[in-house]
């Protein structure tokens, strides 16, 4: 096994090993919220569980997956070994230590902060150190991606960077931008507070800094899925990528438009003026552009594949696609869930409509469709595509993999459709128990029970995923064809430097950030126009008496 392959395999295994127990927690949380009896019914256990489920899924699984995928893409798309294998392993170790640290502290009941970095909720400092290590370790990966792309460009002057490498570097740069808010918040607000160095906390500043991370992190999760859309799916469908330039533009737009938009999570926060809330709401609309461009390009690429396989007529190409390929099936499921979740997202981010569903189960439904649905199902497909290449052993089996994808798709819809409805009915998210005798809450009961069933289906699907990966890993070694990325219809021979690097786009993003966040953050530092600082003491005062 090549060293970069082993690196990728370890990262992906950690991601999936964390994924399974987190799914079990999610299923239990649904049971806890439902009218059905739940084992271990402690309302506080629910909040501990939400914290662990969210921390693992949102921060650990995604980061490990993106890192592993990034290393694999670097080695395969550039066609040469990864540079910086030793720092990569160091980064892996740091991330793993951080994850274990955070998870243990949550399990001890000392960090029930609902996986947010929203003060005044304060966790044990060890939770924040764990998070800092996880983010810090992943920054080694960010540097390695940029380093590998720039050394390749230096060694191949004038050549277009392969789309997959270009895209994973965009992902890395986006993650650096996204993480900046939380890193600053951790270092200067949360950790000093959790350690007891400061007694006062500026809630508005903390929340605004976290909002820098809040939305862009979602695109960090999503981008590996988009990379698979552009570079793996057309190949699996037996076709070609419709346009290489569309791909580059998509990743550039995702980078530029997904960071200066985080305030749309804070429409109900009083510290931010209405003008900036609108400005960022307006900017958020532009995130739809790369997604629409992607949907168009991928459908076009699929059509090319379908027609190449003999499909005729307006929709005949659809039936001609190789649906037995997990990648093709996953792309279809993913686009459906992306569409549904995306339209829900439009309501979340619209300044006026947000009030209807702010902090309700609707929001949870939205991001479970986008991340738990559209993104994760592509993670599965990527794993099925990568596993034989990394381990040199065939996938066992494709039929089982199709079952797994179908169950995941069905389960996720059964979970999230009732959530959308109860959200509109006013059911809050992140609440452990509901009194279903209350006439206002009672009609939600049957819907919540339906989503419990969906949760169980998702659990079965996750167990199936691990079964497939373990079975494949344990099977006999056999030659498999090397990973090949989709060729564009018109493969680029040269591309303008602006579409072959990120200097211009980072500069534009910086200017957008100054406009979108300069005043909202600056006001706390200079004008002191914030609400009075909020006193938080995480433990009894007596504990400090010597």
């Amino acid at each position: 096994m090549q060293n970069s392959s082993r690196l990728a395999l370890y990262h992906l295994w950690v991601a999936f090993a964390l994924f399974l127990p987190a799914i079990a927690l999610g299923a239990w949380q649904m049971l806890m919220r439902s009218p059905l009896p739940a084992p271990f019914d402690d309302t506080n256990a629910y909040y501990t569980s939400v914290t662990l489920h969210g921390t693992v899924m949102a921060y650990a699984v995604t980061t490990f997956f993106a890192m592993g995928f990034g290393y694999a893409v670097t080695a395969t798309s550039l066609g040469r070994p990864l540079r910086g294998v030793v720092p990569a392993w160091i980064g892996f170790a740091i991330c793993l230590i951080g994850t274990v640290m955070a998870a243990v502290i949550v399990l001890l009941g000392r960090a029930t902060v609902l996986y947010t970095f929203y003060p005044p909720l304060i966790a044990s400092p060890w939770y924040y150190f764990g998070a800092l290590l996880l983010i810090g370790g992943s920054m080694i990966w960010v540097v390695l991606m940029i380093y590998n792309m720039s050394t390749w460009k230096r060694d191949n002057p004038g050549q277009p960077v392969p789309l997959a490498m270009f895209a994973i570097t965009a992902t890395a740069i986006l993650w650096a931008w996204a993480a900046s808010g939380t890193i600053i918040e951790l270092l200067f607000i949360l950790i000093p507070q959790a350690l007891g160095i400061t007694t006062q906390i500026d809630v508005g500043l903390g929340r605004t800094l976290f909002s820098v991370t809040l939305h862009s992190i979602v695109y960090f999760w999503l981008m590996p899925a988009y990379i698979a859309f552009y570079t793996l799916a057309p190949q699996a469908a037996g076709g070609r990528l419709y346009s290489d330039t569309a791909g580059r533009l998509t990743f550039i737009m995702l980078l530029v438009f997904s960071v200066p938009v985080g305030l749309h999570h804070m429409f109900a926060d009083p510290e931010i003026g209405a003008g900036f809330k609108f400005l960022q709401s307006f900017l958020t609309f532009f995130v739809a552009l790369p997604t629409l461009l992607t949907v168009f390009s991928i459908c076009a690429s699929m059509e090319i594949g379908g027609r190449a396989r003999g499909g005729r007529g307006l929709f005949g190409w659809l039936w001609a696609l190789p649906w037995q390929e997990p990648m093709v099936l996953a792309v279809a499921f993913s686009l459906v869930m992306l569409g549904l979740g995306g339209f829900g997202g439009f309501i979340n981010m619209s300044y006026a409509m947000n009030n209807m569903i702010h902090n309700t189960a609707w929001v949870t439904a939205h991001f479970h469709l986008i991340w738990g649905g559209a993104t994760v199902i592509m993670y599965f497909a990527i794993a099925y595509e990568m596993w034989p290449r990394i381990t040199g052993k065939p996938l066992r089996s494709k039929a089982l993999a199709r079952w797994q994808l179908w169950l995941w798709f069905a389960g996720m819809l059964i979970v999230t459709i009732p959530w959308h409805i109860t959200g509109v009915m006013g059911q809050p998210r992140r609440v452990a128990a509901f009194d279903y005798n209350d006439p206002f809450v009672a009609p939600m009961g049957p819907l919540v029970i339906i989503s419990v069933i969906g949760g169980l289906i998702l659990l079965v699907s996750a167990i199936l995923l691990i079964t497939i990966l373990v079975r494949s890993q344990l099977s006999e070694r056999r030659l498999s064809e090397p990973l090949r990325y989709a060729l564009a219809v018109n493969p680029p021979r040269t591309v303008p430097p602006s579409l072959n690097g990120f200097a211009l786009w980072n500069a534009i993003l910086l200017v957008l950030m100054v406009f979108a966040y300069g005043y909202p953050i600056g006001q706390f530092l200079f004008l002191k126009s914030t609400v009075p600082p909020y006193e938080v003491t995480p433990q009894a005062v007596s504990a400090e008496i010597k």
Partner: protein
Amino acid sequence: MAAREQGSLRTHSPWPMIGWGTAAGIIIVAGVLGFGFLDRYQQGGPTLSLWNAICHGLGITADTGPASEPQPPLQTPTRIAWTGATLTQISNGNAQHGAFVAANCTACHGDQGKSQSALYPTLAGMDAAVIYKQLDDFRSSHRSWGAMNAIGQALSLQDSADVAAYFATQRGGLPTLTGNRVPEPGRSLRESDPAKRLIFAGDPERGIPPCSACHGPGGYKLGAPALQGQQPNYIDEQLIAFAQGMRQNDIFEQMRIIARGLTPDEMHAVAVFYGVRAGEPRAGGLALR
């Protein structure tokens, strides 16, 4: 040839223009709409001048900044606010001097603050911030109870911080509260024991939050005392006093609101549930950590 093509592309690349133009366009349109239009014309509100609209968009409104008119004196339930200075004074309390002050408390509150009488609360192990606040409430007559008002007035703020520190460090009374806890089954609305359900899950229909969220076990709120091991009769009496409005020193009235929603039987059941001595096992009851 290829190099020349590339060179010409580099000079005529439209992307920087497109990128900067789009970014500038978005910022201008969003800025004009957000600051010039949206804030000016509000449904049901007055149309603002452009300057006021921009200020509104920035989050600067007329009520930001110091109030210009004198405010009428507020009817506050207490004089204590949890500012950094107050918390520092409490945590710097001198327990040694506190022990000297506490000699005056023994007659009623028992040796080392472990009350032997159903009339008086146990002080041993009570959070220092709680004792400090109650002493000041007695001092300022926001809470009234016999001798305590005179005692409160006799003590300086530093004395109360010291005596609070002394009692807080005494073991064998109330447990120290923390927000950390290991989950246990039977702590939700599905619990059949009504007292246990009230303590751990509350009663949402009546708007009653769980007692344990502030008073433990497994919950902590600055200024709220631990109740495990407190004299049950004392808890019962205080709940009645809150319900009848005899005691009014709870900030935000939360205890008066909660106590008004409880039946006398429930008050008693909660008091008995909490009133078990810390460390004593109790069949089917509170597991103590």
